[in-house]
C-alpha cells in the first residue's frame, strides 16, 4: 500500500419501511458521504432491509458517558406516575 488512506468511519442508519424511523445498523469505511451510501447499500441492504439510508461520520456523534448513566437515567425509574397504569379508572368506563 502506497499511502495511508483517509477513509473515515461512518455510522449507518436504515429505515426499514415507510413510517418507521431510521435505526442504527452498524458502521463502515468510506472516503466520502456518497461512497458511504453506496457501500451501505451493499453491506447492509442485501436482503431488502430498507428503503432509505442515512450515513453520519462517526466522529460527529456525541455520546453520553457510561459513567454518568446512573445520574442521567435512574431518576426516571421511580416516577411511576408518568405511566398510564398508575391511575385507576373503573372498568365501566372502558378503554381510556
Amino acid at each position, binding site marked *: 500500500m502506497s499511502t495511508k488512506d483517509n477513509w473515515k468511519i461512518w455510522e449507518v442508519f436504515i429505515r426499514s419501511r415507510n413510517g418507521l424511523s431510521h435505526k442504527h445498523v452498524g*458502521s*463502515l469505511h468510506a472516503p*466520502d458521504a456518497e*461512497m458511504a451510501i453506496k457501500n451501505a447499500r451493499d453491506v447492509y441492504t442485501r436482503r431488502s432491509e430498507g428503503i432509505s439510508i442515512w450515513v453520519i461520520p462517526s466522529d460527529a456523534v456525541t455520546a453520553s458517558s457510561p459513567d454518568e448513566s446512573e445520574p442521567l437515567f435512574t431518576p426516571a425509574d421511580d416516577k411511576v406516575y408518568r405511566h398510564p397504569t398508575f391511575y385507576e379508572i373503573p372498568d365501566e368506563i372502558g378503554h381510556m
Partner: protein
Amino acid sequence: MTKEMNLEDRFQNYVDGENKVEPKDWMPEKYRKTLIRQISQHAHSEVVGMLPEANWITRAPSLRRKIALLAKVQDEAGHGLYLYSAAETLGADRQDLVADLLSGKAKYSSIFNYPTPTWADMGAIGWLVDGAAIANQVMLCRTSYGPYARAMVRICKEESFHQRQGYEITMTLAKGTPAQKKLAQDALNRWWWPSIMMFGPSDDNSPNSAQSMQWKIKRKSNDELRQEFIDKTVPQAEYLGLTIPDPDLKWNEETGHYNYGEIDWEEFYNVIKGNGKCNKQRLEARNKAHDEGAWVREAANAYAEKQAARKKNETHAA
C-alpha cells in the same frame, strides 16, 4: 492497585449479571486485546473464506447454483466488514488489521487452507464448514461484548442459507449417478476431519479458553461445540447415504451423544504453522487482490478530496 482490582471485580460482576459490555465502558486491557484478536481473526476468516469458493463460481453447473454461490461469497465479504467494524469499536485500526492479514502475521481459520478440487467441495463446505461455523456463531450471539454479539446476530440470520445450499448440493450429488455419489463421498472424506478441527484444540489443551469463558466471550467450550456439531451432522450424513470417515464413530446410549475417534492434532498445528496445502496460495491471492485494488482506493480518495475542495469553494463564493 486496589482500585484496579475493584474495577476488575466490578467488571466481572457486570458480566456475570449477563450485561453487555459496550465500546466506551471500562474493560480490562486483556479483555480488549483478546476481543480484538478474536474478532479480527474472525473477520480475516470471512475474507479468506471467499477464496476456496470463488474457485468454482465460473464453473458452477447451473445458473441457479451460480447465483447462490455468488450471493454466498458476497455475504462473506459483508460478514468480514461487519466484523472489522466491531473490532474497530475496540480501538483497532482497520488498516493495521488488514496489513497483519496480508503479511501473514494474523491468523485465520485453518479450514480455508484446504483445496477445493471438485464441485462437490462446494456442497461439503456449505454443509460442514458453514455448519461448524454456525454452531460457533450461534453461541457468539450471546457473547458479552455488545458490538460483536450484534454482528453475530446479523451474520447468523444470513448464514443459514449458506448451509442449506451446501446440503442441497451434496444431496443432489448423493442421489445422482454412482459417479456423482462418489464425488460427494470423496468431499465428505476430505472435509470431515478439518471441519471438526475448526472448533479448536480439545478443552485440556486450550489455555485461553478458561479466561474467555469467565468473561463470557465464549459461552461453550471447544469440545462442547464439537460434540453438538457431530450429533447434529451424523443423521444428516445418514439421510444422504454417505459414510462419515471415522471408524470409531458410534452412538453412545449412555451419554446420549456420538463417540468419535482421535483427532489428528499434528495435522491441525501443521496447517496453522503455514504448512497446509493452500496457505501460500491464499495469502498470495489476498495480496494480489489488495494490490490490484490500490488504484480503486486511490481514485476514491482523489474523488473525495476533489469533492470536498469544490464544496469549500462553493461556500466561499456564497
